[in-house]
């Protein structure tokens, strides 16, 4: 099961930001389903959390609806985040969401960036603010960000908006499936990887995978060959292999640190 969570800040009832993020969500869902995955989507509108975000900033106090939204992001196999551009940057209330979420919530998760604005003049607005922030959170921000100016809603091949959405969501689908090969097995169709990690911390999707340096992914139905360079620590290659940062982070996120069964034994902390 792949869960895509969209976090967007649509500030008016007829918001183009909401419209763009819904388009991106639908497109991503279609791409993943075409590859054979079961997909669940959740859409968080930051507008509804505005007061809770301010309260959390000022008083350190987490409102329940905000915690739910953070939990959804933590669960997600993939994230789409879209903000309106104010004064050349994504609106503050949107970045505040990412500035308040737990450091570990997004680690190893593919993230699609999007923004809306009046003119194409601010097409690169996400690049200087949102992309570094997602990187700090160790999210894998996909190369193609989607910017929609007012004119882009005229539609047609001229605007190129549909094309950009398709390119971006294809990138998202590809990376999400590469990081979650288990999602395509019938067992993986039931729970998101984060949920599955709670039940079996030992078992990993990698267990179903490959045998050698040039081996193909063993996940059925996904015929794209991904060279397996071995564990990232040994090969020194990119952490974006199923045994790298993403998987460890997702397994860790599934852990409930207040569960008496999963708490770190004190002897470990004492160094005994």
């Amino acid at each position: 099961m792949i869960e895509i969570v969209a976090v967007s800040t649509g500030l008016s009832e007829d918001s183009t930001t909401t419209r763009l993020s819904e388009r991106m969500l639908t497109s991503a869902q279609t791409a993943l389903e075409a590859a054979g995955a079961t997909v669940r989507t959740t859409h968080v509108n930051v507008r509804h959390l505005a007061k809770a975000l301010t309260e959390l900033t000022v008083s350190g106090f987490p409102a329940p609806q905000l915690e739910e939204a953070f939990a959804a992001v933590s669960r997600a196999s993939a994230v789409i985040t879209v903000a309106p551009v104010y004064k050349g940057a994504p609106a503050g209330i949107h970045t505040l969401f990412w500035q308040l979420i737990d450091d570990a919530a997004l680690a190893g998760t593919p993230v699609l960036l999007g923004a809306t604005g009046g003119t194409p003049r601010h097409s690169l607005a996400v690049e200087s603010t949102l992309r570094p922030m997602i990187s700090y959170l160790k999210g894998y921000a996909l190369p193609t960000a989607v910017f929609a100016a007012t004119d882009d809603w005229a539609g047609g091949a001229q605007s190129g908006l549909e094309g950009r959405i398709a390119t971006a969501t294809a990138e998202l689908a590809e990376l999400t499936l590469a990081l979650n090969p288990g999602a395509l097995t019938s067992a993986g169709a039931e729970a998101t990887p984060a949920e599955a990690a709670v039940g079996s911390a030992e078992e990993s999707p990698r267990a179903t995978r490959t045998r050698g340096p040039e081996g193909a992914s063993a996940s059925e139905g996904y015929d794209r060959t991904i060279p397996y360079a071995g564990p990232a620590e040994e090969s020194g290659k990119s952490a974006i292999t199923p045994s790298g940062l993403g998987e460890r982070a997702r397994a860790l996120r599934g852990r409930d640190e207040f569960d008496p069964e999963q708490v770190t034994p004190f002897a470990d902390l004492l160094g005994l």
Partner: protein
Amino acid sequence: MEFGIFTIGDVTTDPTNGTTPTEHERILATVTIAKHAEEAGLDVFATGQHHNPPFVAPANPPVLLANIAAQTERIRLSTATTLITTTDPVRIAEDYSYLQHLSGGRADLMMGRGNTGPVYPWFGKDIRQGIPLAVENYNLLYRLWREKNLDWEGNFRTPLNSFTVTPWPLDEVPPFVWHGSIRSPEIAEQAAYYGDGFFHNNIFWPTSHTARMVNLYRQRYEYYGHGRADQAFVGLGGQVYMNKDSQQAVREFRPYFDNAPVYGHGPSLEDFSEQTPLTVGSPQQVIERYAGFREWAGDYQRQLFLVDHAGLPLKNVLEQIDILGEEVVPALRKEFAANRPADIPEAPTHEWLVERHRAGNDPVPGGAPGTRAHNDRLAAQEEAQRKAQSQA
């Protein structure tokens, strides 16, 4: 069950008239508040520890607590909290032992890591090492109070060679220790490991989260073989402002809430009151609310109230203490005693601790041989050895 008050020693402007107490006034007011708490029949007075304005909470709580001990006879003196991270454990061992002697055993302490960043570098510590500091420092403190001629080496303090704490704990039994944490499961785990108490200040945090921390501590207390989960030592904070007329209480307190350094410009008083133990209203409302904590905290041992925060004038604070002493605490004592199993211990007194020690029943840190924890640790060690050997 013991009831009392705690202060964080904030020096805050009264928003209703713009006046700010001087540090001198606030210090003397704190002593007055503590003495008044004893007169009102409360059981505990606890102070925080701070090292910067706008606070007059003592940098070394025993200084304040010894002064109060000399002017009182029954009330227990405690901390909320002692900074176990940035205070030298040797000095904690010496000073609280001294207080224990001066107060005739009426002292205990509650450990915390502190919430003011710069305090760490002011005392030569690294804030990123908060948990390891709390772990190592308390382990040293624990040993200092039980081992003479101690040889010790660690990461965060110079080594000790043949060191004995002076004075040695009263009757050879150190003050009881509670570990406080708002959101770190490691500290609940630490409290459980040693068989110490666990305190959650409960006030700036959703009750649902507090319940989970308390439950974690209780389950791990049982795991380490110190007793059943329901027999563990739990303490909670709370905050109240009361008036016979509940509307009047809200009217009076609202300006203090809205402008308080901690609460101000955040959730409304009503929202905050709904999700945290803050109760602004009639004494009856407080009684009902706090009696209900038993449902998620179990039969606990200590309930402390914050009553002097946010710039409230001394007169109002003393009135709150009167209401606690006359109405709220007597009613809560009855409520908490009803159906309380006889084998759940009360908050430890010095006499109780001495008796336990002499009977040879002190908790064994990490679990005595035969406990689940001990067996798990042995198994883990064997596993590690086997792995090391097979790789050799």
